């Protein structure tokens, strides 16, 4: 599995994908850092992540849309699926490498914490809890992105499905309160207040596991219908 993690991670930086994702995120993040925090002379580092979550909603497909679709289209899927590695490990490998990119992005955002420390005293624990929540959100986004990428061989379609789903779940609570907990991005909102909500955490983790399992099932299923 680590072979796949290593190769996928490297691929993110051999192609522009990794740079585009991190760069785009940081540029927008900087703008929100200025408008949400710096402008108000606040030291609430975690506030930026409300906007950060919005950015993530729109740029996650950059990371995930090609993962499975590209392999299928170019035929390299055959190399993977005929090597002595289980499908679960292939999917996990790709999931982990995409998650690593988000972790790197989070580490980069920490410089804003540094800047704020220079002017005041931002709360470290709250910041870390926020980063944890953000990572959980990213993981569930990535896992869904993988699933979308596995059902089509067209990257663009995979990307559109991913964003479409995120936006749909985002606005579902507006239609009825029943859907409050269906919105992934809403689940994140408690983290920046510095508390780890068990229910939210469990939902994120379950959603992630579910999507990964579904991806594995989709790939496995295709073996018998291909």
């Amino acid at each position, binding site marked *: 599995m680590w072979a796949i993690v290593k190769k996928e991670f490297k691929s993110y930086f051999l192609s522009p994908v990794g740079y585009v994702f991190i760069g785009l995120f940081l540029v927008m993040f900087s703008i929100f850092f200025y408008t949400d925090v710096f402008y108000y002379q606040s030291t609430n580092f975690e506030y930026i992540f409300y906007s950060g979550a919005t950015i993530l909603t729109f740029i996650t497909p950059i990371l995930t849309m090609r993962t499975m679709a590209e392999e299928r289209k*170019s035929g390299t899927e055959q*190399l993977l699926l005929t*090597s002595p590695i289980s499908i679960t490990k292939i999917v996990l490998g790709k999931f982990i490498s995409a998650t690593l990119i988000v972790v790197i992005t989070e580490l980069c955002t920490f410089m804003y914490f540094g800047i704020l420390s220079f002017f005041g005293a931002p709360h470290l624990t709250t910041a870390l809890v926020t980063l944890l929540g953000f990572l959980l959100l990213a993981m569930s986004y990535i896992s869904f992105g993988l699933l979308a990428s596995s059902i089509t061989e067209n990257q663009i379609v995979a990307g559109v499905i991913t964003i479409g789903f995120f936006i749909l779940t985002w606005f579902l609570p507006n239609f009825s309160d029943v859907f409050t907990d269906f919105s992934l991005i809403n689940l994140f909102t408690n983290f920046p207040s510095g508390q780890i909500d068990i229910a939210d955490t469990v939902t994120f983790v379950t959603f992630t596991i579910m999507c990964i399992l579904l991806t594995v099932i989709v790939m496995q299923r295709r073996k018998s219908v291909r």
Partner: protein
Amino acid sequence: MIEVKNVTKKYGKTVAVEDISFSINDGEIIGLLGPNGAGKSTTMNILTGYIEQTSGEVTIEGYNTLKKPKKAKQQIGYMPEGVPLYTDLTVKEFVTYMAELKHVDRKARKDKVQKVIEQTGLKEVQNKLTRNLSRGYKQRVSMAGALVGEPKILILDEPTVGLDPKQITEIRNLIKELGKTHTIILSSHILSEVSQICNKVIIINKGKIVAIDTPENLENRVNKNNCLYVTVEDTENKIANIKDKIKEIKNIELVQENEDGTKQYLIEADKNVDLRKKVFSEFAKENITIFEMKKADTTLEDAFMKLIEGGNK
């Protein structure tokens, strides 16, 4: 040792491969032959575990592909059709990645990768990106990917498609060389290739096995009558008299009339008679000029066509 027992693959109602069984012994070079869409790639994909059969059993070196897929896949080096490669990797990186996927021991990995790169003649291009290579080199890279990890069995899907004649000979020689130490299954629709390289041929048509035999036996199996092609200049149409003069001739048939006025005939005779001498002298007596004369050999091509046609009827 590969054993395939009653394997059937269905897509909904269409049957891609129906009830095929065969076994391949160690060290054999097998050619999988058939027209396009006959089920060659499907069969190979089932062997490699890329797809699963609807029913039936496949065992590779004693490992069932459905029950012990990891062990079974470990025995196989696979070169897929159309040579898919990771285009953002260099040759060396690609082969190393393949080695990692096949769990080649970390310590020995570097040496084994180098060995395979040398074996496939990729040493000068090993630091080039695979996307910048010519088709022939890509084929070699794919071959290197299949070879790394020392699999006992090599499965090559259309290994020479899209290559120029020089590259084809090179790849064929490589396959022959590898055949000394590996069991090889290759698919092809080029018959001369199969008869040159393989010591056993499996002919598939419409998802069914039509014949399994050595190339020589297949040629003998559909032995045509003793036939002779002659191209003659015969303005007075005296060839009609010839049949009476040589008793062994059973039939003379006009094949085609050429633009320069010559005609090509097919002369059929009883078996075990060599007509050429008699034809030469009798034609001369009748003042028919022979431009060309050749014995019609049965080739694998004929065998193939005959077997395939038999299946279509």
